[in-house]
């Protein structure tokens, strides 16, 4: 498979995974601590609360798209290339998107962590 096709596959994974992560993180922030919710209302209530959240379900759809993109791209290239390359770009994308859409305070420590992890993942892909 051509390099362009492999990187198109990786780009698709990155975009869909980032959208899924942001939607799910936003949904889970609205729902609250699942551990506390399970203790107070039970496991069934947790499942019902999560499954009835539309933002969460939309995030799940994007995660499913990311999963099938991953499967297809894994059939074109080794897991040690596809996994790290898509993950490193998703890290950077998520840091930007979380700051914009989730209003998370991405301080110097988190930017450094994202960059170090992304750099490390790129080296793992070599």
């Amino acid at each position: 498979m051509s390099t362009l096709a492999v990187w198109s596959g990786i780009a698709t994974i990155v975009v869909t995974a980032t959208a899924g992560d942001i939607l799910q993180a936003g949904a889970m922030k609205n729902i609250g601590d699942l551990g506390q919710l399970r203790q107070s209302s039970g496991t069934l209530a947790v499942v019902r609360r999560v499954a009835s959240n539309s933002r969460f379900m939309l995030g799940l759809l994007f995660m499913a798209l990311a999963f099938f993109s991953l499967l297809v791209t894994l059939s074109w290239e080794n897991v040690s290339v596809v996994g790290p390359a898509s993950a490193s770009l998703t890290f950077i994308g998520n840091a930007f998107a979380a700051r914009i859409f989730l209003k998370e305070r991405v301080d110097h420590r988190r930017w450094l962590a994202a960059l170090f992890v992304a750099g490390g993942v790129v080296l793992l892909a070599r």
Partner: protein
Amino acid sequence: MTARKYLVLLAVVIFGSCGDVCLGRGMRDFGAVTASNWHLLLGAIADPWIIAGICFLIGFFCTYITALSWADLTYVLPATAISYVFMALLARIFLHENVTLVHWVGIGLITAGVGFVATGPSLTVPDDAALNRRPNREDV
């Protein structure tokens, strides 16, 4: 951060890395999937390695959303990035992929990144919550 929360993050790492390695191993049996033979993916879902990978990834997903319910996305993702180190080691052991010196430098960078974020706060306090708390602190 409590011990229970660190255990949840550890479970995210283990489930995620095992899941990816199982999927990688499973897809090797099917060759390249293209638009003309996309139906191979349907067969892939019945492959034992893919089934194992999906089971691990379900475990990953449950622990991941649990972590997101009490921590920021920009905390959870770097804090669980050590899974890529596990993934490289598992790929070397079980898939016989090559782990070079450059890979080990990458592993060092990831470990440093995890160290940076793991020692910081796990959740952003909203500005309005911070403002509400301030008078209380001054009262004390």
